[in-house]
């Protein structure tokens, strides 16, 4: 297990940079990780991140489609917020492990 210092805080992450302990997440850390991914966070981003964290906490599978059906944003919009690979980027910024739906 690796550790990473983000904005002066040490957090536990995987080799790929995904949090292994979602409890270590804060909004400030999210903003920093997002910057590394080339994303400037807005309130809309946080609505999506909160949805993702809640779903993860409940142990439910996460996919791009499930975010697109959340009522918060559609899939095109999700791509707009986190370009390229939205689910992976959003999971990283939301401080949860890489989505387990990809099995």
């Amino acid at each position, binding site marked *: 297990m690796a550790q990473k210092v983000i904005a002066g805080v040490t957090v536990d992450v995987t080799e790929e940079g995904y949090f292994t302990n979602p409890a270590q997440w804060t909004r400030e850390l999210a903003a920093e990780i997002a910057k590394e991914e080339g994303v400037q966070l807005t309130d809309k981003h946080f609505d999506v991140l909160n949805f993702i964290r809640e779903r993860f906490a409940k142990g*439910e*599978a996460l996919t*791009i489609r499930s975010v697109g059906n959340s009522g918060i944003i559609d899939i095109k919009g999700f791509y707009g917020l986190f370009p390229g*690979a939205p689910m*992976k980027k959003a999971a990283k910024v939301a401080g949860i492990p*890489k989505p*387990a739906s990809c*099995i």
Partner: protein
Amino acid sequence: MKKLLILGAGTGGTIMANKMRALLERDEWDITIVDQFRTHYYQPGFLFIPFGMYKKDDVVKPKTSFLPVGVNIIFQEIDRIDGMNNHVLLKDGISLNYDFLIIATGTRVVPEETPGMKGPLWHKQVFDFYTIEGALALADFFKTWPGGELVLNIADMPIKCPVAPLEFVMFADAFFVERGLRNKVNITYVTPMSGAFTKPRASKVLGNLLAEKNINILSDFYLERVDNVKKVLVSYDEKEVPFDCLVTIPVHKGDPLIGRSGLGDEMDFVKAHKHTLQSDHFPNIFVIGDAGNFPTSKAGSVVHFQADVLTENLMCAIENRPLTDAYDGHSNCYIETGFGKGALIDFNYDTEPLPGSFPFPGIGPFGLLKETRMNHYGKLMFRWIYWHILLKGKEMPIDSKMTMAGKKM
């Protein structure tokens, strides 16, 4: 008389009917199973049909052949589950009461979820092989296809048997080599995942295999629509992939009755606990297999391992004890790699597929995460095991919990 009701007579429902009928006293427990269709499909066999290796007759049998004496069978469409009042309403108005309910209604492909997929080219140049109709149409198409761009696309995860698309492209490689057409067929594997498979070590091994077979991988491609005029796949971020023959794994959803009953997520998969298999909504409702929102593969091996756990936990619930057994996400599958060889993977929620031998450490006879002839024979033998042992709920020499014995870190 107490009542156990099972919805769905596919792999999960059939195994549970067999297991529970053997355990519950006949003069105390009435067991009823409901399904809208009479035919049981051996779904792992669909993969072999497009390449002429299996015929329709190899993969169909009547459901009644696999259900034990002493189980009532009703062939009827289900309207909805009323969990508050412990009954299930069928389409013809009949209401069935239950003390305990097992949901085993599975998953289905929904090509309609993707604009253009069920367009003018459907089953002409755009095929699925997850339905018997699609697999047969593709078999016909391949008989005379002169070659071109063969594209396999996974529309979204989760899907049934996540390795089947990989097996498909490897079979296609072998099929067209044997026909002397391989130089006219360009095979591309287009996936929303970041590699051939998402579990890192398996992804590397399988990715290398595809590369050796000259199969292209296009990853992180999330399908928005199929353009029937230009014959291209279009992703949400406007990438395009041209095809002459598109083999699609459409979006999967649970049964619509789950949505009507208010028991599912937005994809109609039943919300249930990933270890106990109990519904999030009602303690006397349990879920098995593809119907659940469990973060695991939708596959027969998962159903088989879950069946042991569900049997145990259902007996706990019936006898008013705390649920003692926990499903660990155990899954294993043979992966056909073409030319008479196969690979095998074995994993769970926490442990990714690793190399080694299976099921006996150091002996095998099957090799984990490597190509061997024995693994291919294992897959072929499995069809017999499925019909004669697995569906009947009999003992198999493989534990429902994954073991690290025989695996190399």
